[in-house]
């Protein structure tokens, strides 16, 4: 407990520095702005803004504070297009449309927006509190992990990813494999052997992470926007004067509380992010509270549940990233990649070796959540205006931002072609119902996965049984099997 308090006070010391405070606010503001854009979810928002944030040349903790602000800001802003437009920005916002949009149709748009802001705030804040309590514990436990335990942990991460994300587990696995394979390109750090570069000198250091992220997410999103252009114009509902009352909040109190816990713990599971969390929270709440069949017709609890869950999951997903170096979602995989760009390797030692980053980030999330609530309640009208930006201007802007980002960081015109081609690839994969989060997760974890496997086998002089030699690793493999089997069994029972 003392460690937590002293860590927090150190963290607040960093997060409250005027410059960092400004970055938290800026990140939250721009995040909400980008999140409110119709069809652009947090992962694409972070992807598009990442190179620019990196190019600004801030110290790592400041850049991470900014990026994390954008991340949960976008998670916050996503609800605006879900509620007013019935267009979810990403999978995690789908559940928000179910009751949020009907509320707005019933003339309670203002109430829906303010209630969801409060629910998001509570979910996000509870998650940060749990994170400050459990994060350091988990980190101090994970310090004892051997390379073979890490291998088991990563098998678990990919197993839960494959079974929970997307419709077809084989496609998710294939996506992760593509990411892992992309990560093998370049010089092998252990032996200096060159792999898969085909004599291209630019590839010696591997494919640039920023190029992959911007291409697969930002550019693919742009192509999707143009593809859907003809699908009719969207009409946004107006923000009215209705507002959330204390009674509404107390009525949803238990819902928010339950959903926040569900969200946080699902968020922690490696590989599963806000989309699974909000779906589970909505389903649970429907089972517990939907006595009069009001869910789906504008029940405030049906809105509060997914909103508090997905913000709690956004916080939960940070826990494995900071403590184990294993991201809990696609977006945190991008944040992890961003840390690696700064030569900071997240993992159990980060709380001891780089406390300014770990605790600075956590403290900034307390501030960010409060700031989001404060800027979102009065400014919701302004953010809602983002919905009325005509697509024909919005779409080119995304390309311009992506180009600025890639060029200013990499300064290599070839990479501009590369992001266009990756964008086309990413779009194809999306059309074929591959989700892209596994690809980026595979790419980010590839090096770590291989290193630990090789280190483990070096320790055992080539004996593969070392992989199942510790209790921790056996626990992880068991969890991995459960992650694959349980949804299968549940799915079969539902069908029967």
């Amino acid at each position, binding site marked *: 407990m003392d460690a937590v308090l002293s860590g927090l006070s150190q963290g607040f010391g960093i997060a409250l520095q005027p410059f960092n405070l400004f970055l938290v606010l800026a990140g939250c503001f721009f995040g909400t702005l980008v999140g409110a854009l119709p069809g652009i979810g947090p992962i694409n928002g972070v992807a598009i803004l990442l190179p*620019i944030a990196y190019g*600004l040349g801030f110290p790592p903790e400041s850049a991470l504070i900014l990026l994390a602000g954008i991340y949960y800001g976008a998670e916050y802003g996503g609800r605006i297009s879900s509620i007013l437009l019935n267009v979810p920005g990403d999978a995690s916002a789908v559940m928000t449309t179910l009751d949020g949009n009907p509320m707005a149709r019933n003339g309670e748009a203002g109430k829906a927006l303010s209630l969801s802001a409060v629910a998001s705030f509570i979910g996000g804040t509870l998650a940060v509190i749990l994170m400050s309590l459990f994060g350091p514990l988990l980190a101090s436990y994970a310090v004892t992990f051997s390379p073979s335990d890490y291998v088991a942990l990563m098998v678990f991460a990919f197993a839960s990813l494959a079974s929970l994300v997307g419709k077809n587990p084989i496609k998710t696995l294939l996506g992760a*494999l593509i990411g892992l*394979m992309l990560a093998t390109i370049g010089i092998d750090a252990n032996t200096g052997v060159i792999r898969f570069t085909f004599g291209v000198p630019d590839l010696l250091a591997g494919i640039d992470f920023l190029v992959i992220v911007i291409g697969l997410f930002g550019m693919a999103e742009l192509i999707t926007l143009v*593809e859907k252009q003809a699908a009719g114009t969207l009409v946004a509902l107006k923000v009215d004067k209705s507002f959330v009352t204390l009674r509404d909040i107390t009525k949803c109190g238990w819902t928010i509380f339950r959903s926040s816990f569900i969200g946080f713990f699902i968020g922690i599971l490696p590989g599963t992010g806000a989309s699974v969390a909000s779906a589970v929270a909505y389903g649970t709440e429907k089972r517990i509270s939907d006595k009069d069949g009001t869910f789906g017709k504008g029940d405030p609890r049906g809105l509060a549940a997914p909103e508090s869950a997905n913000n709690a999951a956004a916080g939960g997903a940070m826990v494995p990233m900071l403590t184990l170096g294993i991201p809990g979602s696609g977006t945190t995989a991008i944040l992890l990649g961003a840390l690696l760009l700064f030569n900071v390797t997240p993992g159990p030692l980060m709380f001891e070796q780089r406390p300014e980053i770990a605790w600075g980030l956590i403290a900034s999330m307390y501030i960010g959540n409060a700031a989001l609530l404060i800027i979102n309640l009065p400014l919701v009208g302004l953010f809602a205006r983002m919905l009325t930006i005509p697509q024909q201007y919005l779409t080119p802007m995304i390309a*311009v931002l992506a180009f600025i980002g890639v060029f200013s960081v990499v300064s290599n*015109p070839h990479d501009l072609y590369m992001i266009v081609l990756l964008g086309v690839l990413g779009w194809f994969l999306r059309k*074929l119902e591959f989700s892209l989060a596994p690809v980026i997760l595979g790419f980010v974890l590839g090096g770590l996965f291989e290193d630990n496997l090789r280190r483990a*086998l070096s320790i055992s002089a080539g004996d593969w049984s070392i992989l199942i030699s510790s209790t921790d690793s056996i626990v992880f493999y068991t969890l991995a099997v459960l992650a694959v089997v349980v949804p299968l069994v549940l799915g079969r029972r539902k069908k029967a």
Partner: protein
Amino acid sequence: MADRILAGIVLLIAIGYSFIAFTIIKAPFQYDPLGPESWPRILGVLCALCALQILWRPDVNTLGINKSTWLRLAALVVMLLGYAWGFQPAGFVISTFVFCVALSFMLGAKPLPAIAFGAVTGVAGYLVATGLLELNLPAGLLEFLE
């Protein structure tokens, strides 16, 4: 069908990748039991197996895109490639102007607003990015103004 085509391409890539992993990649002497070649071998084989499974049981048949959408997407990709091609030689302001006018026009903007939009994005984008954010952007043909 669409699924099968992609799976076929992935399968070919996986075979090529595995071929390289099994034949070409070799460390001059053994540093660790696995060496640089084992991990790519595992990945390549798994990837080929996944691709085979999708070839066997595809689940997406068509992309559900009509001809005019294909044309629009093709035009978009051409514009993006053109933007990438002109970005450095022509400079940010000019290439962005041309790209924004062309794309917003294609997406249904009227000519005058499209031109105004392109001009504002190019000039304001350049000033904000280079001046305020201190990012590096090519000045290109407009270098003489600096």
